[in-house]
């Protein structure tokens, strides 16, 4: 049984453009120019119960639109969506009982009143029994360390504190499926670590499925075994993070610091790899495949005097950037 099944999902928006000038504005009153924009373009994927999936892509790639369709907020233009065995849009009230959602950029707590009042309302809204609530939420509150914040109005909380409360609020009814839309945006490292730790824990404890969008690749590395990558509304990669790294992040960067000035031509004639200048002409970076590493270092060390050398792995961040810049067709 899949938690999420998506087949040929598509969402089109009408985008209006306004004409320039006063005369243009006047004409806009009567007829308006618009074009159809396809935010999500026939995507298909499935997610198993208990999976943690990273849903990544550039701004405007269609991540949020997908999440909105999966949560029943937006109606798809075409295609099939089944989440927790239901059609999100058709059976909205029953469906939303089985999901939790956190929008990093949008608060779902009531701004002017104490956090615990929001919790109390949500407890009633989701019809959670006192027993279930105490059992489950005591643990959540303790793990996220938000006990001292409960009697404070939301507007007085820092972003990190608020985000932890948001997360707790999304989990009041202990949903089997959790959507997180940029949950760590703008948070400091400690809060990020705490949130990740917590997500891992509930995933293990309740087998909660988590679909996560983020721009922070360290989130993905820490949490998700699988990533789905989106570009211009299309899925360009769906598979394990490991696989992605092996195929596109195989290369290493070797940073040499030379004792004397060296030119690019000299280096290129010595070993035939891609050289990139560092801060100055004493520093050069070689982009090499893992297998050629020993060879390159050997050659350079035998020909030049070095001050320093270090080897760096290509980060996920860079891999993703490369894929966006160059496309996924090779490699």
């Amino acid at each position, binding site marked *: 049984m899949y938690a999420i099944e998506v087949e040929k999902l598509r969402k089109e*928006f009408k985008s209006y453009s306004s004409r320039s000038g006063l005369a243009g504005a006047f004409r806009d009153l009567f007829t308006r120019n618009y074009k159809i924009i396809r935010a999500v373009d026939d995507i298909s994927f499935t997610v198993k119960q208990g999976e943690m999936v990273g849903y990544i892509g550039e701004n405007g790639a269609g991540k*949020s*639109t997908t999440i*909105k369709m999966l*949560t*029943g*907020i*937006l*109606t798809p233009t075409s295609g099939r969506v089944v989440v927790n065995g239901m059609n999100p849009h058709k059976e*909205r*009230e*029953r469906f*939303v*009982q089985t*999901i939790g*959602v956190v*929008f990093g950029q*949008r608060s*779902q707590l*009531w701004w*002017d*009143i104490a956090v615990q*009042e929001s919790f*109390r*309302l949500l407890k*009633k*809204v*989701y*019809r959670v029994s006192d027993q279930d609530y105490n059992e489950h939420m005591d643990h959540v509150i303790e793990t996220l360390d938000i006990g001292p914040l409960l009697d404070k*109005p939301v507007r007085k909380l820092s972003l990190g504190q608020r985000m932890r409360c948001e997360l707790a609020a999304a989990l009041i009814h202990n949903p089997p499926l959790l959507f997180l839309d940029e949950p760590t945006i703008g948070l400091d490292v400690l809060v990020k670590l705490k949130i990740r730790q917590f997500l891992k824990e509930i995933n293990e404890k309740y087998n909660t499925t988590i679909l996560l969008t983020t721009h922070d690749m360290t989130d993905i590395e820490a949490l998700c075994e699988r990533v789905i990558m989106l570009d211009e509304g299309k899925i360009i990669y769906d598979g394990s993070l490991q696989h992605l790294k092996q195929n596109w992040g195989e290369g290493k960067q070797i940073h040499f610091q030379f004792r004397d000035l060296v030119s690019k031509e000299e280096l290129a004639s010595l070993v035939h790899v891609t050289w990139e200048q560092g801060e100055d002409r004493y520093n050069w970076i070689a982009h090499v495949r893992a297998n050629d590493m020993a060879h390159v270092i050997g050659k350079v060390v035998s020909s030049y005097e070095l001050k320093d050398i270090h080897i760096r792995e290509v980060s996920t961040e860079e891999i993703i950037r490369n894929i966006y810049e160059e496309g996924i067709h090779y490699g």
Partner: protein
Amino acid sequence: MAKYIEMIRMRFLMMLAYRTNYYSGIFIYSINIGAYYFLWSAIYGGQSSIQGMTVEQMTTYVAIAWMARAFYFNNIDREIAMEIRDGKVAIELIRPYNYLVMKTMQGLGEGIFRLIFFSLPGMLIVTFVFSLQFTTNVHTWGYFTLSTILSFIINSQLNLLAGMVTFFTLNGEGLLRAKRFIIDLFSGLILPISFYPEWAQHVMHYLPFQAISYIPSMIFTESFTGDVAIKGMMFQAVWCVVLIVPIYLLWKAAKRKLIIQGG
């Protein structure tokens, strides 16, 4: 049902958090009532009654109309418009409740707050300052209570409709302002409907506005008694039911066309 009651409580708490805003409100309403009081006293001059209302009835009408307004008046139209504009309605749609009912409950929480912290103390102040005529008839109070609840429902329904129109226009500021003005004018808050020209009264009989202020206030001043009062409340009840139809249709259309902005 528990969730809706919880929402009333919640809004009550929210209002309580900003209660100081309301002390100035009492003052403003008192000034309004005072101004109309002197205006009507001047208009009546020596005459004992105009359009079948005595000067005491008239001034009581004005006072009670404003105080009832504090209860039925709410800003849920503006809130809905705002929640649509900045996309907050998305969060409302992932909750297992009916958004419109929830908004109405918020309006009710606000209404109850204002009734307790605004209308009652305000009324007390006003009765000290001006000579008003309060009935001791239990039936009248009962009718008035029921009628005010109905006027709350109708006003909230109109607010829901107005707020939802912004689903389609995405900016309904002008419309909301116009709606507010129309309700103040045609509901009989500023001028009792019986003072309007014959043809206007006729037109207004086919509109829901007088159910908001005119009918409960006339009941309170005992200008409407017995059958007339009951007929007035029937008029209100019918509109309560009739207005459900456009709300339902508009909400259905709005959900289909929902665009979340800024997401």
